[in-house]
């Protein structure tokens, strides 16, 4: 049984003008997979990620994560779902500027009982020497690594990354991708990366192509490349 199942998911924003963001969206993701959701900007990727991460509701359809129907969860349950099961990584890092790298990780760990030791996680992402620096004192790549450390320290079932390299140059971006790849394979955390960059897709076990708000096709990579091999 797959870890994640999207079944005919539809998302419509109701307002002055109704916008159909996502429709007829169905796919599955297995445990431990590194999946890339690929598509042009405006195709509906982020909407899918938001629904998957419990930040937004689906208008119709079914979303199952680890056997639980998150499209039917109450708001409060979603908070705990995000807290326990999900790790987020954003394009703009979203670190708390007033906390050191270590404290940013600790902030997330405060929420979970079986969280990892924050210092160990930072060491794992290669920032043991920068632990006591504030975000403003770190480079973009370093900040993103803190963000990843913050996300995985909670030992989530699912790591969701929204354009994690979007604000980084290609060399730094590649390092970040490498880190994500390692986490997925070494820690066994199912990882979903959203991007418009087709090169990144080459490292994925599965690539879900999104076009005009729905799944265009799904591509299975029998032999995904290693992050070191890709260039953009």
């Amino acid at each position: 049984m797959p870890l994640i199942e999207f079944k005919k998911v539809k998302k419509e924003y109701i307002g002055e003008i109704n916008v159909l963001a996502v429709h007829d969206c169905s796919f599955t993701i297995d445990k431990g997979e590194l999946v890339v959701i690929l598509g042009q900007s405006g195709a509906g990727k982020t909407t899918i990620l938001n629904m998957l991460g419990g930040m937004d509701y689906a208008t119709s359809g079914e979303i199952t994560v680890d056997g639980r129907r998150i499209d039917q969860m109450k708001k409060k349950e979603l908070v705990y779902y995000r807290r326990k099961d999900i790790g987020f990584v954003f394009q703009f890092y979203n670190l708390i500027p007033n906390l050191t790298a270590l404290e940013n990780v600790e902030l997330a760990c405060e929420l979970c009982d079986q969280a990892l030791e924050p210092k160990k996680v930072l060491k794992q992402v290669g920032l043991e020497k920068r632990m006591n620096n504030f975000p403003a004192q770190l480079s973009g790549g370093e900040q993103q690594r803190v963000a990843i450390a913050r996300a995985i320290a909670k030992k989530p079932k699912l790591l969701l990354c929204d354009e994690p390299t979007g604000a980084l140059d290609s060399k730094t971006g590649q390092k970040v991708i490498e880190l994500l790849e390692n986490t997925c394979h070494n820690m066994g955390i199912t990882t979903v990366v959203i991007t418009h960059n087709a090169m990144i897709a080459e490292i994925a076990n599965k690539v879900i192509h999104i076009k005009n708000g729905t799944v265009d096709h799904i591509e299975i990579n029998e032999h995904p490349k290693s992050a070191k091999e890709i260039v953009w």
Partner: protein
Amino acid sequence: MLLQNTIRKIKKSFGRYFSLIVIVFIGAALFGSLQLCAPSIKNVQKKYYDDTHLMDLKITGTLGLTDQDVKSLKQLKSVNQAVGSYSKEVLDDSKTVKIHAIEDEINGFQLVEGTMPRQNDECLADASHYQVGDIIKITEPENQNDLKNKTFKVTGTIHSPLYTGTNYGSSQIGDGKLYSYLFVLKDVFQYDAYTEIYLTMNQSTEYQIYSTEYNKHVETLKKEIQQIQKKAEQRRYDELTSDLVTKLDQLKTLNNMMPNATYQENIQKLEDAIAMVGESKWYLLDRYDSVISYKILEMQYDEVQILANIIPFFFLVVVLLMTSNTMMRMITEERSEMGAMTSIGVSNLGIMRHYVIYVLTSTMLGTLLGYFFGSYVLTPLFYSCFPVEMPDLQYQFHFSLFFVLLIFISLLMLAVTIYSCNQVFRLRPAELLRPASPKSGKGIMLERISWLWNRFSFSWKITIRNIARYKKRVFMTIVGTAGCTFLILIGFGIQDSIDGVGAKQYHEILKYDNMIVLKNSITTISNELNEDLEKSIKSPLLLNQTIFQVNTTTDDMDAYVIAPEIVDHTFYQYFVLKSNHDHKTKKLSNNEVYVTTQIARRCDIEKGDKITLEDGDGNTYQVIVGDIIENYVSNYIYMTRELYEKTFETKWNGNVIVSKNKINNETKIANSLLDSGNVLSVQFSNDLLHDVNSGISGLNNVIFVLIIIASLLAISVLYNLTSINISERIREISTLKVLGYTDGEAERYIYRETIIMVIVGIIIGLIITPMIHHEIVNLLQNDETLLLEQIEYSSYIYASLLTFIFAIIMQVVTYFKLKKIDMIEALKSVE
């Protein structure tokens, strides 16, 4: 383009625009209404006086006044009108009522209901106590028959400008208190001479009441009158005695020719009759002396004006802080838009115009609305709080005040906007287009003390570091809350200072129940008098109470010298002489006097110094001050009988008696005492206490309104601060929510900071208030009344609680705002 963009800005941030308007509105409303309060009410009073042709001066004469007097007064240069008229105190049941004659040209009134009387058995009556149709049966004092009619039907009710207050002063008959007044046709009186002459001055209406010009003019009028006074007094005396004197002369001549016992008896009778006529003397009474509340109102105008000059200043400071804070925030938020505009070549001035229009329209709108609200609603509200019976407030738009306020606020707002814009313009367009680098986190001093720092829990560390990080906002919040606490506490504090005075004076310092003024001075309470007194009072103490002028550093002040017959237990029971120095009660000595606080302050003297007393005839006397005694109402100089005789080189005699009530009914006591024939008047401490309280009730109500407005301001300030706090940290909060913080947990993350800042603000407010309160109280008190300087503990508690509750309410509002934050949107956008 310019206008469209501005309108769009307003629409986009309507909450902010609206809160700017509200804050300016409150400031302008309070400032405008308080400033207008005293002048507007004074204008009503002035117009009332002009419309009713209120007298400027009243003359009474011990022997009555004649047409001849009126005629000679009319010839004086300053006199406009001189009207001979009548009045008389009578009893309506046991209550004293004063009956006046209706005059056409002078001392008119405001007809509240009904019609004018046409017959001698009809009257106009005080609208506060009588109704149209009432039948009033009056009785004249014994052996008097000056009125043709004793029963009157009320055909109309009126307000008279002679009685503007709620308290009508004292009377010579009945219980010593004037209860009400009536106006009847002049024909009802059957005196053979006028009891009074009312005068108005030339150009009297051209001078503002209470103004120096007006008072000077009255003095000129008095001087002119004094020049004919002696002659007129003599004339009246001669008029009354001429027949008697002629008869006496005849008799004397006859008696000289052939002495006769009958002649001698008649001569004696005539001589007695002439002596009975007594001295002929005029009294000149101006409005201060004869118009009820005239003096009290003047004092209240001064007091309200002092408040009007001080309090709005603090309001304006808070208002300016808040608006500038809002503008700064707005400009910071829109830096990328400003960058975009600069990059396409719009000049700095062109960009600034948007913000200037934004600020100026909101400020002007707020000022305009606030000013109108203040003068239309608040000023009449203050007016209704004044304890006076006067016509309704006529609304007047004071252009000058409005423009001063408008220009003042606008200029300040303009300065703030230009300053904030320039902060941004200093950066290059390319920098502007990038998001403002988030304020970098920094370690703080406290972290270096690791043994302490490590003891804090994680969330406390964050709180402390945040407080250290957003210094500007911390400053704003603390100043804002301190300001609000201050405004609320100062309101309560002034109320405390005022409220307690009467009770303090008449319950803790002067502890007798009544003061009896004797008709004739006596050296001791005779057995006969004691018998009379004992019917209604107990423990009488005979005193000499004489008014003197004390020469102070600036001008003279009135003070009563109190010298008891015997300094015994009863004296110390009635007069608590508590030293200002060591707060212990003092005993009188034969070498030194004790003076009350206000005398010492005004003369700038201390224990051991000398002060100079001046009597009515200009003789001066020096005494040594032994101590300074706590006192709040009037000024007293206490001395022993021995020192009195030594100082004034005259024999001591007593003219007043103070005592405790024996029975519970003060009207009965007064009647019993006045009936005895030895007593001129009786004053009850309860009435004095009530007078003190009602005299300041107007001010008290103004302050109550002030507290409410301060609370409103507190709410809007806290709302403003909270919403800025959220807007500045929306990304941070969204991040927390995405990480899985519940709404409550996210709220707690910023709420602890706010609460700490609010508490610090409240504490600072509580610390600074007493200092400023002290200054305000000093300004508010006058020669006659000292205010309490202490703010009650309960007021501290109320002020802190109110501010704290407002802060909590605003936290609740924040909670709902936090709930509504769209975390996805907040994290997606760069801005």
